[in-house]
């Protein structure tokens, strides 16, 4: 199972999906597009010491983190 973690005011919301199930994958891709379309930033861990920002849905990624767009304080 893979997971998409969305950070928002309520904390984090986790959506799990089965990477072997086409319908589940399509739902995860739709969620990815919807969130990034709203300005959320998507990031993945590409190694123990490395984080990457991604712009397209990758069905092979086990954990994707989404956080809202950044603003100056």
């Amino acid at each position, binding site marked *: 199972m893979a997971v998409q*973690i969305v*950070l*928002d*005011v*309520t*904390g*984090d919301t986790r959506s799990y999906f089965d990477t072997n199930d086409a319908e589940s994958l399509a739902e995860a891709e739709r969620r990815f597009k919807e969130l990034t379309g709203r*300005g959320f*930033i998507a*990031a993945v*861990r590409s190694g*123990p*010491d490395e*984080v*990457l*920002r991604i712009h397209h849905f990758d069905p092979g990624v086990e954990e994707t*983190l989404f*956080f*809202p*767009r*950044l*603003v*100056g*304080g």
Partner: protein
Amino acid sequence: MSRLRRAFATGLRVRALRRLYRIYLQEKTPQARGLRLLRSWLTPRQRAEFDSEGQFEVVGSDSGKRYRISYGTSANVHEVDRAGRLGAGLCFMPEGGLVAGDVMLAQKIALETCEKSTLALANRFPPLLFSSRRGQG
């Protein structure tokens, strides 16, 4: 003698804080969940720094400059010079009033993956008057 007593008292205080921190991490509140998520995304070195000091350093993706992210939700990021002294402060955060752990995680990812665009939107503030090197309080 009083120095010894002070050191002993400080040691007790640090142990008490660590105990509270461990208990806090086991809670199910958004704040505790945010801290757990943050810890799981930190590198082993950053995690060790955060557990002992409540702050950790990241390296900017474009300049290679170091930044220190302290516990908090705003005005909690500082540049760090080669000697380990704190420089200018940077104020930026994700929209929407996230809890501290989530804000710090977003700040870490932003500096480690898109430093230039993050600096472009961050507001800068002057260095702390009494900046100190890591571990010297």
